[in-house]
Structures are given as C-alpha cells and as structure tokens.
C-alpha cells in the first residue's frame, strides 16, 4: 500500500497532500451540510412537521443557503472583547476537529487519510485541543453567559474524555492494536466488536454524546439557560466555524464509532465507503433521535455521572475484556 510516511517529502507529494486535504475538506463540508439537513428533517418528522422544504427540491439547499447567509453577514466584533483571542478562538476550535478526521479510515484503501499506528490515541489527543478554542472563545467574548457556557463546556468535555478513552481501550485490547485499520482488520476476522464489547459500546455512546455536547448533555449551549452558551457573542462566519466544528466532530465521532464497534468499511457486497457511510449515518441518526426525545441533564449531575457511573462502568468493561482475553 502506498503510504505518505514511507516517501520523502517532495514538491509532488506535497501537492498530493494538499489536494487530498482539499478533497477531504470539501467532502466534510458536504457531509456537514447534509447532516444538518438530515437533523432538521428527521427531527421535523418526529415532531410531526415537515422540516426544511423551501430552498431547492425538498429543501435540499436549505443549509447551503444558511451557510451563505452566515458568510455574507457583517463580521461583528463587539467593542469590549479581547480582539485577538476572539478572532482566533474559532480557528483553534476548528482545526483539530478537521485534523482528527485524518485518521478515520473512510474506505479500504487510505487514499486521503493517514494510516498512523496510534490512530485512536491521535484522535483523542486532538479532540482535547478543541476545548481550548471553546474556552478562549467564551473568555474573550467578555460575556457572562459565554463565560459560564465555556466553563461548563471545558469541565464537561474533560470529564467525558476519560470514560470515552477507557471505553476505547476495551476495543484496543480485543484487537491488540491502536491502529484503527488493524482494529477493522480484527473485526473482519471475528465479529463486530459491538457484540463482545456491548458495555463498552454503551459507555462510548453516552460518553461521546457528552463529548459532543449534544442532548441530553448539551449544557454548554443550553439555550433556555445560557442563551447560546460560549458562542453567544459570535456571529457571521466565526459562528459558522463553531457550528462547523460541532458537526465535523459529529461526523468524526460517527466514523470512530463505526470503526471501533461496527467494523468500519468492512462488510459484504457493498463497496467499503458505502458501508462506512451507512454505519456513520446510523450513529448520527441515533444522536438526532435522542436529541428529539430527551430533556437536558442537570448541570450538577452531569459531572458526577461521568465520574461515578461511566468511568467505573468503563473500567469494569476493561477488566472483563482483559479476563476474557486471557481465558479464551
């Protein structure tokens, strides 16, 4: 298999990388656009509405119109904000989210993504950087709601990171590798890890919901309490960047979930990328479904939940996995 890492960096390979990045970026934008569209449609149907239906056939261009509106909006930087931090915060939040995508194997061959040996770890490490962007944004906004929102966000993302990592370790033990590709290869030979790792899968689902700040853990943006949370003061394309970050993470997390528990691109008959797309869609739809059903958790019960319920569960799962692995 041709690999970026085994070749010296030449102008040609740099160009190749650049093209690959742009292609992935465009792909991501399309995915984000249509996951937002799907969110609105799906939740709309659940709520007995019809969702977007005006822009384009079946409202398919609604999100494009929204993004376009955000892009041409006046770029408002309020007077009393910390200008520099205010401006770079969305970038700090967005860049790692996009970089995290680089390890997700979309298909059998790594055409545009990297096959690095520490894939799962790389993902976790990068996603932790986004918290800085969110915190800086909330701090620099000089707004009380934004501050509370960003503090909540930081606390929450950090505490969910640990059970999330722990639930991944179970899978890693099963496969014997942190390389996401090896994990898929492991599942190809046996069953999908969702079956032996049921507990780990549940913990992963819950912790990833918390990590993504989605209902019922959407406290940082609790619009009924905090107006809009950390991006209260943002508008125009800076706001769009925060939104983009959120949905890119949704996509990335869906990819991770599919890879870890559902066998990634592996599957009979259909091409690999299609299997991947279907599996990611399942995760994304599940998130929207939960969003349409659940109220928000109470802020003072979220942290204890992460530390006192999820973490022990994940550890328990880890122990069982280790024991089973040793016995079988």
């Amino acid at each position: 298999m041709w690999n970026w890492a085994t070749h010296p960096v030449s102008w040609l390979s740099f160009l190749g990388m650049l093209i690959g990045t742009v292609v992935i970026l465009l792909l991501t934008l399309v995915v984000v656009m249509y996951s937002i569209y799907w969110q609105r449609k799906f939740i709309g149907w659940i709520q007995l509405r019809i969702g977007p239906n005006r822009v384009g056939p079946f409202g398919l261009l609604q999100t494009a119109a929204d993004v376009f509106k955000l892009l041409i909006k006046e770029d408002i930087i309020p007077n009393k904000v910390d200008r520099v931090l205010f401006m770079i915060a969305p970038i700090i939040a967005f860049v790692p989210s996009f970089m995290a995508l680089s390890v997700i194997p979309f298909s059998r061959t790594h055409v545009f993504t990297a096959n690095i040996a520490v894939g799962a770890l790389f993902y976790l490490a990068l996603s932790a950087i986004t918290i800085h962007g969110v915190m800086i944004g909330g701090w620099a906004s000089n707004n009380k709601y934004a501050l509370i929102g960003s503090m909540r966000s930081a606390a929450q993302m950090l505490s969910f990171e640990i059970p999330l990592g722990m639930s991944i370790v179970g899978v890693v033990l099963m496969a014997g590798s942190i390389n996401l590709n090896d994990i898929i290869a492991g599942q190809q030979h046996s069953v999908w890890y969702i079956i032996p790792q049921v507990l780990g899968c549940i913990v992963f689902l819950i912790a990833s919901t918390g990590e993504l700040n989605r209902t019922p853990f959407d406290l940082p943006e609790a619009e009924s309490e905090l107006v809009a949370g950390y991006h209260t003061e943002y508008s125009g394309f800076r706001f769009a960047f925060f939104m983009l970050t959120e949905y890119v993470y949704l996509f990335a997390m869906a990819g991770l979930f599919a890879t870890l528990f559902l066998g990634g691109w592996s599957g009979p008959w259909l091409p690999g990328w299609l299997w991947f797309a279907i599996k990611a869609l399942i995760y994304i739809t599940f998130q929207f479904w939960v969003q349409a059903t659940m109220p928000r958790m109470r802020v003072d019960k979220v942290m204890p939940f992460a530390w006192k319920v999820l973490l022990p569960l994940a550890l328990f799962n880890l122990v069982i996995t280790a024991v089973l692995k040793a016995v079988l």
Partner: protein
Amino acid sequence: MSLSDGKTQLRTEEMILNVGPQHPSTHGVFRLVVKLDGETVVEAEPVIGYLHRGTEKIAEDLQYTQIIPYTDRLDYLAAMLNNYALCHTVEEAMEMEIPEHAEYLRVIIMEMQRIASHMLFIGAYLLDLGAMSPFLYVFISRERIVELFNEISGARLTYNFMRIGGLRFDAPNGWLQKVRDLVPQLRADLKLCQDLITGNEIFLNRVRGLGVYTTEQALAYGMSGINLRSTGFKWDLRKTKPYSIYDKFDFEIPVGQNGDCFDRYYLHMQEMEQSVRIIEQALDDIPDGPFIGKVPKFVRVPAGEYYTGIEGAKGELGFYIVSDGKDKPYRMKIRKPSFVNLQMLPELLKGQNMANVIAILGAIDIVLGEVDA
C-alpha cells in the same frame, strides 16, 4: 500572595447576571437579576412590569361588557377563564340567574381551556428543560381545542366569548358532538405525554426534590392553585367554595406530597385528566335552553364592594369590584394568581444553580400578561 497559604485566598467576585427581559426562558418580558457565585445564586430579584398596561385603571372607564376583551389579555393562555371570572363577579353582584344550558356550556369551555393552558405549561416547561418534541406535541393537542374555540367564538386566542348573564353565541350545530369526539383524542394525547415525559429518568433526576417549599410557606405567600396543592394542601375553589355548577360533577382534586417541581408538573397532568372527566359528565347532562339569561340593557352593578374568585388555570383568579351604582366600576382590582405565586421566587432561588433557576421559574407557571396586567 500565594494560593496555598490559606489566609490570603484568591479574590473571587460575585457576578450579577441579568436574566431577561429578552431571554429565551423567562416566558415573556420578565427580568431576573441574579447575583451569582460561580454558578450558584446568592440572591435573585425579579423585576416585573414590562408588560404593564394598566388594565385595572382602564377598566374604570369602561362598561362591564367592554372590560371583557381586556380580561382576555391577562392570562392570555386561559382567556375563557378570565372572561368567566369577570362575568361571574358581576353576575354575583347583580344576583343574576344564569340559564342551565349556558352554565353547562361554560363549564365545558372552561375545562377545555384549563386543559389547553396546562398543555402549554407542559410543553413550555419541557422546552425550558431542553426537550423540544413535547412542546410540539402539546401544541398539536392544544390546537384541537383552539380550533373548537375558533368555531364557537370566532377567535383563537382572545375569545371575548363570555357575556354577563351567559355567552355570546350558542354552540353551533354539531359542536358538542365534536367535543365528544375530542375526549378520547385528549386522553390519547395525555397518554403520549405521560409515556414520553413522566417516566424519563433524566427528567425525574432534574426536577425531583427541586424548589421544595412547605404548605405553611405557600400559605404565607398567598399561593394558590397547583403551586399550593403540590405541597399536599387540598384547596381547589371548584370544590372548597363551589361556584357555577361544579358541585354537580364528580371529580377529584389531586394533591402532591413533596411540594417540588415534579409534583407541580405531575399535578398538571392529573388535573387535565380530571378536566376531561368533567367535560364528559357535562356533555352527558347538558340540557337545552337559552344561552344567555335576562340581562338589562345597561349592566349596572348596585353600589357596594364585591369579590369572587374562581379556580383559574394558575390559581385563584378573583375580581374585586367597587361600584357606585353606575355602569362602570368605580375601582376594579384583579387578584392575579401568577403575580401572587411569583412572590416566593427569590426565596426559592437562593442557593440554586443557574440550570435550576430556569426549572424552578418554569414550574411556577407564570404568564407575564397576568403578572404585569
């Protein structure tokens, strides 16, 4: 200055946060000035009056019939009940006879209105707590009631339908049958809400044991309605001081046990079920007859002071009229349940965190049109 030496601690400051007047969860233009220590409320002060229209003063210059459209705009989610409260006070003062048919129709309409109002509470409360779907579901159910009101009165929100001595119109042909058909539908809608919300662990976790107060406290603050009943005190004017024809119906007054937000939510649910029962009974017994009694051309309340309260959707809704015998009140005072119930808020909020502020405020169920009048 070091952090560790214990005596000289890092200086922290309390933060003053203005929740409202433009805030998604204050149910209108209501402002809450909270002093926060971290996310914990040290002090909260409600600021009201953004929607003040001087209804009581305006009423002094209007004939009694002309006041009715103004009462629509008090608790605009339960306009029929407000209409009735005013008409009832005037009728009591003038010792009027109301035809049976009109009374039954009024009761049916009022109970439907109570359901519509409680439905909206459920939806708005869950929206405050972050769940979106229940809001839309209850709006669909409420729409069924509002459509029927539209048919009978010609309006969807501000009905202006009750008249002194009866009603403005009789029910159109087939309307009562439509209500009869609505009853099973309402039951199904209530079941959907029960299934979706009542058992949800996240919801229970969020509202159980929140905003607790005792019966004594509630009485000291003059609370009424569900806010009072949630503490276990059985006080519903429909039973304790029966007005209209409520003594003819068989229904229960559900009471809570703990006086927390969950009890307040759950009482709304149970009361709706009781209201459905009342509607059913009233539909079975409704006699034929005129829809308005004998009313003099000019409604003149004899000189004196009169007060009657009814069980509104939010609590005791009363009109106090001082009359000097003219066709306009000399002074009118409205006992607005939302306004009275709101008074306990600062005490309840002390020591809570921001998320609970919204949950407690939502459970008190205020309508700003009524608070500010």
